[in-house]
């Protein structure tokens, strides 16, 4: 039994969830109808938790490009970028990414997770020091761990805490690597990047920004938060993913540092995994062209984001601190979250159920992510589902007891 003992707490947590009516927090998409609809548990369901921000997964041009690559180049590369897995498409995509970001170079990785693992493990090694925002994604934490640098957390979005910790480092601050995200995946809030870039410059540290959730979402050209707040010159590395706005799978890093090219040779997650398939690369290249030219998608995405945020605020749900395509409904306990999550699914709406310890503050989240692909009718149905659940809860609320009492909306 020995090696399995450690799973007992997990088994107990799953049993406890099952008693609350959750068989599994991950659902099976039985049939995919569109970027915003699927069949789940036999029910046609609007998807409001896919990170498919521009809704490109069914774009006709992307599919055509992927099919052509599949026919011409086969189903997979069957090898690492470092060996036989670099096709002309991978090189072309790197060139196009560098051009899009106005950077000297780019590296394509197999997933967004691998991009962080690959960059951080190579960049920050024993003797180096990393300062990361406490709410950074698991891939960032894991990349840090793989590299073996000293890792110091600063309070989420707290520039004075970051500055204090840089000051404590003394001369070592000049060798520090600061890690933040453009938009944080759980609450949808942005990093105070302008201020962070100023602190970075003052101490001579390096700055890496993960734009996974902000690529195609922020900035005039869709390059992310660094573009939006005008600090691209101060950002040493941008990491991102193809699995959100670009509707495929894969990851990348861009930089003006010529040393980026050397990271290929120092990055185990780059060297020891197979490269993205030709069809993935082909659809990603097409999606990047669409992202560059179709600013109307970004406008529609933000219209939908504002609509959902506003309606949920009016319903007195406690949300993330700012309007974003990630609209997080913050609940005080898992029971409340599960009740609401089940209710939404019964009404044909799927959102992400996020339970501790994956949540930033130990609470529970119903994490919604809207898409440019959501039609006004779908947005209305999503809002109606939340409204009907809120009304049901308020009806059930007699005196001081309630299923989930109204809370103040709009602030963290």
């Amino acid at each position: 039994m020995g090696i399995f003992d450690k799973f007992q707490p997990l088994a107990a947590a799953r049993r406890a969830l099952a008693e609350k009516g959750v068989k599994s927090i991950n659902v099976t998409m039985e049939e995919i109808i569109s970027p915003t609809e699927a069949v789940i548990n036999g029910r046609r369901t609007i998807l409001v938790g896919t990170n498919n921000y521009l809704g490109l997964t069914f774009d006709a041009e992307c599919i055509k490009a992927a099919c052509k690559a599949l026919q011409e180049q086969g189903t997979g590369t069957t090898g690492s970028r470092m060996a036989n897995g670099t096709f002309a498409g991978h090189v072309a995509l790197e060139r196009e990414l560098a051009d899009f970001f106005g950077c000297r170079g780019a590296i394509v990785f197999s997933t967004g997770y691998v991009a962080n693992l690959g960059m951080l493990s190579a960049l920050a090694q024993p003797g180096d020091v990393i300062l990361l925002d406490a709410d950074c994604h698991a891939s960032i934490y894991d990349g840090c761990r793989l590299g073996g640098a000293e890792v110091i957390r600063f309070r989420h979005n707290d520039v004075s805490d970051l500055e204090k910790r840089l000051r404590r480092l003394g001369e070592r601050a000049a060798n520090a690597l600061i890690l933040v995200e453009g938009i944080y995946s759980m609450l949808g809030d942005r990093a105070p990047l302008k201020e962070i870039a100023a602190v970075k410059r003052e101490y001579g540290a390096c700055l890496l920004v993960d734009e996974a959730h902000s690529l195609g979402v922020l900035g005039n050209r869709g390059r992310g938060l660094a573009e939006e707040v005008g600090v691209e010159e101060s950002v040493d590395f941008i990491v991102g993913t193809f699995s959100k706005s670009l509707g495929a799978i894969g990851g990348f890093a861009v930089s003006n540092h010529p040393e980026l090219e050397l990271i290929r040779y120092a990055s185990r997650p780059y060297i020891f995994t197979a490269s993205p398939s030709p069809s993935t690369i082909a659809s990603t290249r097409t999606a990047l062209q669409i992202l560059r030219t179709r600013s109307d998608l970004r406008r529609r995405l933000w219209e939908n984001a504002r609509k959902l945020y506003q309606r949920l605020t009016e319903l007195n749900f406690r949300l993330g601190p700012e309007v974003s395509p990630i609209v997080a409904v913050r609940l005080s306990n898992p029971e409340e979250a599960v009740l609401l999550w089940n209710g939404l699914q019964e009404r044909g709406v799927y959102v992400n159920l996020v339970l501790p310890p994956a949540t930033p503050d130990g609470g529970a989240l119903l994490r919604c992510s809207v898409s440019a692909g959501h039609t006004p009718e779908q947005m209305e149905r999503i809002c109606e589902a939340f409204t009907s659940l809120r009304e049901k809860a308020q009806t059930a609320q007699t005196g001081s007891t309630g299923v989930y009492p109204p809370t103040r909306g709009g602030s963290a």
Partner: protein
Amino acid sequence: MAGYEKLLKELLDILKPFAKPGQSLQEQTDLVADLGLDSLRVMKLVVEVEDRFDISIPINILPNIRTIRDFAVQLEQLLGEGH
């Protein structure tokens, strides 16, 4: 540089709110097995200790800390190194 005994005393003071009702804290008290701290509460504790001593505690050292004594020893070392 603060002495071990003084650090231990301060640490025990910070840890008081983390103890279960009626539980007495000793050097050998295990943060996970005895206090039942999960990862979120461990991070909360770390932030409180960082504030109290005005230091940054690298998360890499956390796997080396099981007991209150381990924590005090690590703290003594960090304060000596000037984090």
